[in-house]
């Protein structure tokens, strides 16, 4: 093995990789833009859709209108609802056909119960699976509650009581989680998963291009006849793929952090709530970057080995795509609420990183666990690199004899 040759191959592969549009997209464009697009795009889309849905007049049916004429009048005077006449039998079908959003039914003794100081009953019918219907339900409920408050106030006044008299105890909850923990909460679920995927996609295209792609173009043999040994070639290519994987991860982390900070200072409350990450501390960021090194090594070596077996770029894609699914499942662990990190998980690659990254982003630094995960992944990466080296030494793989 000669460091000089590894360096030669590495720099050439990086130059070649940076001239490849596909790799540039997966290595630079996607990690930089995925977070702002996801966070601001999605949150503003959701907000604007919700606003639109809220402003839109809802169609409702009212049953037993004659039993609660005042409340009916009150509901319709808000300007939020259009009333339609509908047989109660066909209500369920009409709801599922989206001919109306909700219906309210007053009991026959509604007004009477109110006057006598009893509880007057009404039922709201809606379809919880429909956002608009659910919105109509909550709007109807709010209006009825407000109406109820007015009645209560009048009744209390009649007996010389204040509103506070019927609310003698006020209980409040205070969140004592440190700001770093709160701020990282959303990030902690999302970032580990995204980082795993980004490290993988970042390595994918260069790995295929530098092996199967080179075979397909007929350039691999010209490299094999040079004084660079197989180990030099494997080393140079591995480092190039690793760089791509790591850069993708770093850019992803940077983009996520900047997006979050910008979200807090520049954008409105929705964006703030969505990004919810005022202070990702420097230690977290350093640990994140450190923890993705062995995992990027593992991805790079596995992808190189797999794609080297293929004769063409297309064949390599069919080998590599299933690996993506293998990565997605364990990476998803960070998304599972209440998923406890147990010792056994330390030995499951990807899942271990996903879970330990989640802890780190929440500001919990269990150093022994972090060290163990790093070590375990380093061992896996070592095995992966050894496998890649063996592949580069195999004539049957290089020439597909």
């Amino acid at each position, binding site marked *: 093995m000669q460091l000089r040759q590894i360096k030669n191959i590495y720099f050439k592969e990086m*130059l070649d990789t940076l001239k*490849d549009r596909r790799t540039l997209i997966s290595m630079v464009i996607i990690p930089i833009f995925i977070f702002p697009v996801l966070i601001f795009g999605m949150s503003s889309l959701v907000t604007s859709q919700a606003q639109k849905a809220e402003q839109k007049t809802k169609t409702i049916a009212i049953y037993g209108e004659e039993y609660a004429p005042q409340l009916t009048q009150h509901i319709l005077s808000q300007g939020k609802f259009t009333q339609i006449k509908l047989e109660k039998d066909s209500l369920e079908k009409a709801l599922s056909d989206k001919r109306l959003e909700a219906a309210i039914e007053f009991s026959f003794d509604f007004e009477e119960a109110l006057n006598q100081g009893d509880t007057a009953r009404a039922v709201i019918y809606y379809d919880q699976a429909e956002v608009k219907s659910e919105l109509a339900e909550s709007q109807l409920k709010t209006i009825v509650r407000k109406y109820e408050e007015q009645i209560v106030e009048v009744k209390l006044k009649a007996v010389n009581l204040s509103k506070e008299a019927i609310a003698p105890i006020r209980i409040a909850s205070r969140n004592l989680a440190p700001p770093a923990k709160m701020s990282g909460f959303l990030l902690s679920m999302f970032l580990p998963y995204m980082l795993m995927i980004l490290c993988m996609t970042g390595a994918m295209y260069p790995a295929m291009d530098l092996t199967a792609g080179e075979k397909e*173009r007929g350039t691999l*043999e*010209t490299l*094999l*006849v*040079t*004084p660079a040994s197989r180990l030099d070639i494997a080393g140079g290519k591995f480092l190039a793929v690793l760089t791509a994987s790591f850069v993708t991860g770093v850019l992803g982390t940077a983009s996520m952090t900047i997006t979050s900070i910008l979200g807090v200072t520049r954008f409105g409350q929705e964006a703030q709530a969505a990004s919810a990450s005022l202070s990702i501390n420097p230690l977290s960021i350093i640990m994140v970057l450190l923890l993705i090194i062995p995992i990027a090594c593992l991805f790079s070596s596995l992808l190189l080995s797999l794609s080297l077996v293929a004769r063409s770029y297309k064949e390599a894609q069919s080998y590599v795509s299933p690996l993506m699914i293998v990565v997605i499942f364990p990476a998803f662990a960070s998304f599972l609420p209440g998923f406890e990190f147990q010792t056994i998980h330390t030995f499951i690659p990807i899942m271990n990183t996903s879970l330990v990254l989640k802890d780190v982003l929440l500001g919990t630094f269990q150093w022994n666990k972090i060290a163990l995960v790093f070590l375990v992944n380093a061992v896996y990466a070592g095995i992966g690199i050894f496998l890649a080296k063996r592949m580069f030494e195999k004539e049957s793989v290089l*020439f597909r004899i």
Partner: protein
Amino acid sequence: MIEALSLTKHFQDKKRGLIKAVDQINFICHPGEIFGLLGLNGAGKTTALRLLSTTLKPTSGTAKVAGFDIVKQPQEVKSRIGFLTGQTALYPRLTADEVITYFCRLYGMNGQLLEKRKKVVFETLGITEFKDTKVDKLSTGMKQKVSIARAIVHDPPVLILDEPTVGLDVITSRDVIDLVRDAKKQGKTVVFSTHRMEEAAKLCDRIAIIHKGRILITGTLSELQTQTGLRELEDIFVRLVGE
């Protein structure tokens, strides 16, 4: 000089069983000589040349290339050979200059030596005017010139050429033929494989006819004619291979 000594390569194929791709071949090619390996497709030419260039390891036997053993000293061998085939390609996204610089570095050249050698090769082959163009944008002929430059940029004493004119038009083939003749003039050792009779007859000082991994006959064209009593190389070939 190249000296193949009982050079053998077997492959295990799941369907066809043991394949003797190269079977105990022996030949010598001296400096200043063009040695032709003539055979049908699948005769074992490519495997033989891959063994000589050390990209494949022999099952048994060995060969000496420029005085070094292909099994024991592959790195020494590699730095002394120029390898070219009709199929070898270049990196499409790099410029001609970047490609050649890369190979110069792989052959251990740096700094002034690298620039000097590049200049000589570019001028000899007429690459200078398109050296900064991406390989992707070059014509087949230009690409072949860059390929030749890649093979000879380190001034190797031995050239191993595996069907270097396959798929090339007449004009581009001429560049390869010129390369072979120049190499001979410079006293280099040239092994050249082909399945084209006229090319072998025209270029090679000595010819070996290879079939099913074995060399059937070796000699100059006139020696082959004397041994077989036939005049045309094609007739000689058909008789030997057909038997």
